[in-house]
């Protein structure tokens, strides 16, 4: 039977197992909305801004490992979606975004609500497609999901002219797809893996530096097994948190600009650096010239272009984390060589000494609500088992430092692009994927206002998200840099004329709370968590001049941290 393009799209999404589609209607996608209306398999979630549609799809993806899907109209719908697409691109998140487009024969005519969506999104997608013939639609959708979810994941845009959604074609959803120009390498080179294992075993001061790739590649179990087999220390990037249990004794915390003293010192002094699914970002390496001066480096990554991009490595291994780590585990079991126990023991002694600096301690006697205290309370009240999304700023760093993630997929934040406004819509996506789970959104009074309109979406779909706002009345991360590097000239970093967030939440039909006293933090958190089926906006009025420590200033090495 012949179906319209719109029907083919919806049927294809169903074939891909898509349960939720985050979107916003408009002229160019009306046929699609009509097709969605006439079925129940794919549930459409109406957001309040297209940026939120993409962030919600992204949050859905980050918390499940499956591709998130968003649908927006042409022109302004597409441009509004770009921030969310770029956010997903920078963090390698699998996502399929469908943008409406004007009629094929109008393309290029400055038609109503026309933009060159393919051109605008090209630099921030893994790939994009303009579908000009309805006969190509099903296969294009198949390709889009395949590309988005395999290899190094990433967002894929399908630009769909309105006439293509009305035209008809036979519907056959391809069972499989292969592309001559796209064959991601999964299996690592055995010879290289052997070299890596030998190097790992000869290490006297080793460290695992692991990142988002372990989460994306579902390699957390393998990483944990390998690291524990060897008894080597592990540090995670911001994107890797949860890939190794944070409460385990081998875990040193996050590394990098706001990483722990012990993680950064261990990095700086290591002799063998085992990098897995991490991309040597500048927030991690600090000054490249001073990065790990004594280390031989092993790097496992599925994307060859991540390897030796910023830091030249000694043993590159292109492959998926699961595959390569399984090989390593097997080789270690088969071989009879063991790590040098004496050397590793001494190494741990040194690390324990660094840990003694207690770099995450903070003033608990100030009489002010400390942001760190709030995150610790959140951790306790949720038994460390919540999905935590975050916006961007100081609050993001505190969430990363003080919430101990033991499992992957639980920590959802924008690391690469650093997109303020990400937290709340991402939390919506997470809550749709995990309706019974506790989902908390850690945010700042600056960031939350960038997608605050989504409180309305949360009401419509009864999403019981717990918003933990660390309200310091400042664009705190900006203020911190101005304090340190601009002699305290706080240009435009004071958030004046803030709304009353309690009333604001209430006007959207939610529960609002304001907490101004440190003694009330635990109680408020407990009370909020008890309101299982309500969205609660907790406005914590925190110490406005608190800074994120440790901090590595620009140009410094990992051993040159500013401590409290």
């Amino acid at each position, binding site marked *: 039977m012949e179906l319209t393009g719109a029907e083919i799209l919806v049927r294809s999404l169903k074939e891909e197992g898509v349960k939720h589609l985050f979107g916003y209607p408009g002229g160019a996608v009306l046929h699609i909305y009509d097709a969605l209306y006439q079925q129940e398999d794919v549930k459409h979630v109406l957001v309040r801004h297209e940026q939120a549609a993409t962030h919600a799809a992204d949050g859905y993806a980050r918390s499940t490992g499956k591709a998130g899907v968003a649908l927006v109209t042409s022109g302004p719908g597409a441009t509004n979606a770009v921030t969310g697409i770029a956010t997903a691109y920078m963090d390698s998140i699998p996502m399929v975004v469908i943008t409406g487009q004007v009629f094929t024969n109008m393309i290029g005519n400055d038609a109503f609500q026309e933009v060159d969506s*393919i051109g605008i999104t*090209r630099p921030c997608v893994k790939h994009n497609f303009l579908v000009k013939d309805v006969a190509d639609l099903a296969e294009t959708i198949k390709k889009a999901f395949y590309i988005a979810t395999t290899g190094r994941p990433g967002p894929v845009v399908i630009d769909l002219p309105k006439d293509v959604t009305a035209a008809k074609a036979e519907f056959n959803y391809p069972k499989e797809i292969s592309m001559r*120009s796209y064959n991601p390498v999964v299996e690592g080179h055995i010879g290289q893996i052997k070299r890596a294992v030998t190097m790992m075993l000869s290490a006297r001061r080793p460290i695992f530096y692991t990142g988002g790739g372990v989460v994306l590649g579902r390699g957390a179990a393998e990483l944990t097994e390998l690291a524990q087999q060897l008894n080597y220390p592990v540090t995670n990037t911001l994107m890797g948190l949860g890939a190794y249990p944070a409460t385990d004794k081998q875990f040193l915390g996050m590394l990098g600009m706001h990483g722990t003293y012990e993680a950064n010192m261990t990095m700086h002094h290591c002799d063998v650096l085992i990098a897995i699914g991490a991309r040597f970002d500048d927030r991690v390496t600090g000054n490249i010239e001073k990065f790990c001066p004594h280390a031989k480096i092993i790097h496992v990554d599925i994307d060859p272009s991540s390897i030796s991009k910023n830091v030249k490595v000694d043993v590159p291994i292109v492959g998926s984390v699961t595959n390569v780590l399984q090989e390593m585990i097997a080789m270690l079991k088969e071989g009879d060589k063991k790590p040098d126990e004496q050397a590793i023991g001494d190494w741990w002694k040194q690390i324990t000494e660094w840990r003694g600096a207690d770099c995450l301690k903070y003033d608990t006697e100030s009489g002010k609500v400390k942001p760190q205290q709030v995150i610790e309370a959140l951790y306790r009240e949720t038994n460390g088992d919540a999905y935590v999304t975050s916006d961007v700023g100081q609050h993001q760093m505190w969430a990363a430092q003080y919430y101990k993630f033991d499992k992957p997929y639980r920590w959802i934040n924008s690391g690469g692009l650093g997109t303020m406004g990400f937290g709340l819509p991402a939390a919506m996506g997470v809550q749709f994927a995990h309706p019974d789970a506790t989902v908390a959104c850690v945010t700042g009074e600056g960031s939350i206002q960038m997608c605050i309109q989504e409180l309305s979406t949360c009401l419509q779909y009864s999403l019981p998200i717990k918003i933990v706002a660390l309200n310091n009345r400042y664009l705190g991360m900006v203020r911190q840099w101005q304090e340190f590097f601009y002699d305290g000239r706080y240009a435009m970093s004071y958030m004046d004329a803030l709304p009353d967030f309690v009333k604001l939440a209430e006007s959207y039909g939610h529960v609002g709370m304001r907490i101004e006293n440190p003694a009330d933090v635990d109680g408020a958190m407990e009370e909020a968590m008890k309101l299982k089926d309500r969205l609660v906006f907790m406005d914590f009025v925190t110490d406005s001049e608190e800074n994120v420590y440790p901090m590595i200033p620009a140009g410094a090495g990992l051993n040159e941290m500013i401590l409290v």
Partner: protein
Amino acid sequence: MENEAGALSRVAGLFSARGYNIESLTVAPTEDPSLSRMTVVTSGSEEIIEQITKQLNKLIDVVKLVNLSEDEHIEREMALIKVKAVGEAREEYKRLADIFNGRIIDVTEASYTIELTDSGDRIVEFIAAINADQIIEIVRSGVSGIARGEKSLHS
């Protein structure tokens, strides 16, 4: 590369977005109409060339990539050079064109248009041999390259 609309702009976009140099770029369909072949001439340190190679390979439309300069290869570029040609200069340009294996393909009372197909370097040499103020206009096609011997992109 896949012979798809947009493939060219992906390559061009990659070079500008990542700040790589493009010295020249040529593209046209091949013996297989679903594929087109592009020759890009670029420059950079060893690390940069490695990154360019990896980044290009990552583009979904790129089917196969070789670094021709790693092996023996042939480069050819075509140039059309229009010069002022009056009086003695007419003979001189004819001789010069002969020396470089060029051909005069258009003649007027006051001008010649010379076609020259050779490596980029030879074309530069030819142009250098002409007095700059005698040049009316130059069009260069950019370099196309192919491996020497039986090797091909298919092998």
